[in-house]
């Protein structure tokens, strides 16, 4: 397979294609007829997925170096270039994006009732911006994609959202904007200091990483600016308050993308920028204990708040806060197993929570309510939906045999040596997750069928099976056989850990504990 890909020059054009295909499709959708907007978008996102899937084989898991690298002049006067590349961390973020997008289009098929052309065009622009965030190796380029992503999401929430959409949209925008503007100042400070010290003014990630020592006297402030931007996006407790509003008000596909991909941008930012650029801060015990504590608070707090939500979508939204707490714990424990686990949770969360948001949307389309109390005993009416909802919930809880288990286990395993107390408390988050999800399932699916409105609900249609099927397949596949994924993450995670810890990256080293677990 990889020979075939090499023979068509795949590695030279793949990143360009991944950014260009959605943009081109967006142009076609904007100019084309309204009634074909859905079909064109679906075709475009499927093409995007097919192109991206080649990365699976073309990616060389034996090296932590950036692959598929490409650099083009953009604004040479200011040292800005289009520099892109993919490593084991960004690889799965890209695949997750391209995998989620066709499903999001299918999931919006009937949910979005008006203004198709702008909606689907925005969805496509969002895809391009997200891919851009994950491939950018130029800090300016990264910042541009990071910000550009805001606008389509702002419109998707604000135009097609729920009753309180205006508030949610502007809150989402301003929260992210605060963080990212401080990050812009930090990026520019690094740029001008390193430029003054080395004589080369450049935003290249490689150049900045190699010369980051010149700003070590400012590392604390710079790290703070980066970390704030990423922490808001993750979101780390206490910066999470935009999330429930945005998730609940957004249309189904918007919630899926928000939870599935957008939140990962924050965690990705930590892995790609905040950690490697400022190792001295990242290894500082005070900083580590603060962040780990916030992560653990997020796990417990998110779970507890989720438990009391009467609204199913809000419950799923708060469960995201909890899951992302695990990601933060994994990243900041800085062992190979925990970082791998964190990346795996990022993937799993995209799949499971995405599926839960789809299911919440499907329930809403049938009953026009998301209140858990309005349902009850619907397993008898809609068995297909109930089976999938149960399976997905179990995966979100982290039941062995599903994808959720592997990620959380790796994180807990990798973190225990570093932060035993935090890990023990975090483990209880798994129990809470079981409590809030199973309790919700019981109330929705299995109690008495006492609401006559529920008796006429229709079961999943073929289109809905098409949306959920791939997600369920991934849940089981990753749960049973995660090795191919972990193998591709491993060298990058290892290189990151060694680089931050100040040891020379030993890329061909022996397998570390936790890698072969299945």
């Amino acid at each position, binding site marked *: 397979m990889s020979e075939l890909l090499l023979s068509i020059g795949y590695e030279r054009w793949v990143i360009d294609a991944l950014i260009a295909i959605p943009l081109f499709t967006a142009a076609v959708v904007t100019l084309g007829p309204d009634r074909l907007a859905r079909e064109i978008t679906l075709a475009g996102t499927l093409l995007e997925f097919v192109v991206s899937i080649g990365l699976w084989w073309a990616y060389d898991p034996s090296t932590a170096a950036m692959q598929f690298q490409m650099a083009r002049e953009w*604004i040479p006067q200011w040292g800005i270039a289009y520099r892109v590349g993919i490593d084991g961390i960004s690889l799965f973020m890209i695949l997750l994006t391209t995998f989620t997008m066709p499903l999001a289009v299918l999931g919006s098929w009937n949910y979005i009732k008006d203004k198709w052309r702008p909606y689907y065009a925005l969805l496509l622009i969002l895809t391009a911006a997200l891919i851009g965030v994950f491939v950018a190796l130029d800090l300016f380029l990264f910042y*541009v994609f990071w910000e550009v992503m805001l*606008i389509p999401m702002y419109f998707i929430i604000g135009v097609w959202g729920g009753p309180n959409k*205006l508030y949610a*949209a*502007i809150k989402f925008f*301003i929260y992210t904007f605060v963080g990212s503007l401080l990050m812009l*100042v930090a990026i520019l400070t690094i740029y*001008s200091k390193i430029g003054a010290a080395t004589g080369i003014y450049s935003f290249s990630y490689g150049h900045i990483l190699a010369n980051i020592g010149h700003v070590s006297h400012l590392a604390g402030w710079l790290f703070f600016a980066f970390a704030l931007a990423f922490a808001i996006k993750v979101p780390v407790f206490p910066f999470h308050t935009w999330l429930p509003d945005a998730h609940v008000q957004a249309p189904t596909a918007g919630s899926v993308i928000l939870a599935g991909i957008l939140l990962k941008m924050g965690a990705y930012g930590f892995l790609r920028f905040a950690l490697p650029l400022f190792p001295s801060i990242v290894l500082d015990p005070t900083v580590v204990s603060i962040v780990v504590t916030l992560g653990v608070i997020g796990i417990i707090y998110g779970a507890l708040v989720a438990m009391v939500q009467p609204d199913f979508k809000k419950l799923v939204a708060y469960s995201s806060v909890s899951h992302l707490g695990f990601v933060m714990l994994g990243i900041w424990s800085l062992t190979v197993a925990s970082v791998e686990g964190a990346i795996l949770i990022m993937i799993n969360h995209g799949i499971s929570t995405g599926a839960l948001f789809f299911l919440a949307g499907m329930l809403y389309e049938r009953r026009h309510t998301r209140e858990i109390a309005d349902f009850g005993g619907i397993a008898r009416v809609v068995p297909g939906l109930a089976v999938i909802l149960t399976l997905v919930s179990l995966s979100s809880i982290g039941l062995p045999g599903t994808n959720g288990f592997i990620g959380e286990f790796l994180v807990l395993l990798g973190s225990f040596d570093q932060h035993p107390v935090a890990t023990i408390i975090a483990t209880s988050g798994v129990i809470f997750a079981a409590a809030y999800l199973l309790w919700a399932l019981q109330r929705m699916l299995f109690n008495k069928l006492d609401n006559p409105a529920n008796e006429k609900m229709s079961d999943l249609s073929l289109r809905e099976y098409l949306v959920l099927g791939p997600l369920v397949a991934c849940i089981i596949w990753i749960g049973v056989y995660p090795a191919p994924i972990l193998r591709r993450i491993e060298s990058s995670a290892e290189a990151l850990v060694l680089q931050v810890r100040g040891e020379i990256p030993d890329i061909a080293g022996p397998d570390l504990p936790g890698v072969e677990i299945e």
Partner: protein
Amino acid sequence: MQIDLATPGGLALSLLPEIFLVLWGCLVLLVAAWKHSEENATDLVGRISLVGLLGTLAVVWWMWVGDWTAGEFAAMMALDNFRYATSSVFIIASILAVAMSFGYLGRERILIPEYYALMLFGTAGMMFMGGGADLIVIFIGLELMSVCIYVLAGINRRSVFSAEAALKYFLLGAFASAFFLYGIALIYGATGTTNLALIDFQIAASGLNDSVMIMLGVAFLLVGFGFKVGAVPFHMWAPDVYDGSPTPVTAYMATAVKAAGFAALFRILLHGFGNSLEIWQTGVWWLAAITMVLGNLFALAQRNLKRMLAYSSIGHAGYLLVAVASGGAMGASAFIFYIVAYTLMTVGSFTVLSVIGRNGERDVKIDDLSGLASKHPWMAFAMLVFMLSLLGFPGTAGFMGKWYILAAVLKADQLSLAVVLVVASVISAGFYLPVVMAMYMKPTTDADSHRNAITSGAAKWVVIGTALALLVFGVWPNRLADVSANGADNFRQVSPITTPLSTPGAE
């Protein structure tokens, strides 16, 4: 090309664009005297003015491309790229203001062809401000510009608010001019000269860095300019004047007049006091910080679109002051870049306002834009571009300009000012986004709204042109960045007298 300023011919050549523009303005006045008080005649005069402005722009660019420099010490008017660059900005802003006046004057029944002549003379005044190498020349330019603007602000005789605007602007403008003159007098008293290069030399040679007279003089100059560019706390006139004036005049005031104030400020501070930053940098620092934060906070409270834009232009004056505070050639190029972007987005948004409004647009609330996107999708899209650009969002020229200013101020090691700038930008999201929200996310209030919006003629082309330019410069700023860098290129070495003579003086 070298101009010999010792000969009358050379002197005239050095003033070529200004002479051309003033003569053309006289021609316009003649035509206006001939034909009067009809809509057609007013439009004809407007067209003639447009040709004159384009001609002046061509002359300026001819001098710029031909690299005209002074053979010797420039006593009155500088011959440098900064003059050419800023003159171009003033002329382009005037062209846009003239173009957006076409349909507007007829609709509002302001059939006074002298309107256009005043704009031409005002622009000539600005060009003297941007090019003056002597405080007196800058002052004369300032007065020439201001007198024209006083009249323009009150040109709608039937509107009480227009009269109020003119009176307010005149009184406070005269007040500011007095400050300015006082500052000149004090500086003259301390240094014995009004020539900027000589002032710089004298300060270094006689060690006047901590002279109270110089400091007071600079402080008075800053107050005078603070009034002219609408910096907080000297901004009180701005909202009422911007609100009461006819919208094209408001756009002209918010862009060209502000640009001229800043160009002169740059020249005075960097030429006259460029080697003694400590005299003025702290003052400008505070002026910038207060203007950014308060200007944006005041704008947050506005429900009226025109007033919101007026306050937002105060906030932008703060961003431009940050470029001044960085105190170097990079600050000057950042200023040129930003003022171009700012001119485009401000003129663009005022044009959209003038197109959807009536009766001087005083009553257009932000919520009145509700549903604009469904009625006039392209106009709403253009307004979206203007708002995002004013907000400084990537993909627009406003972002690149803000980026440039941030880079300049960080290069000057003023991290705190950069942080204030971004905090102010975050505040500004609170009033730019509601415009977007109203256009795209709120339903139309009644079926008739926006039906009468004029979408024909010159105003349409102004909107399309400015929006496109903002997007192009936002994605490919390369050309504009080169031009801005070039505009500040030989800025500091304008007079050969400073470098050779200041060295012995310093010893």
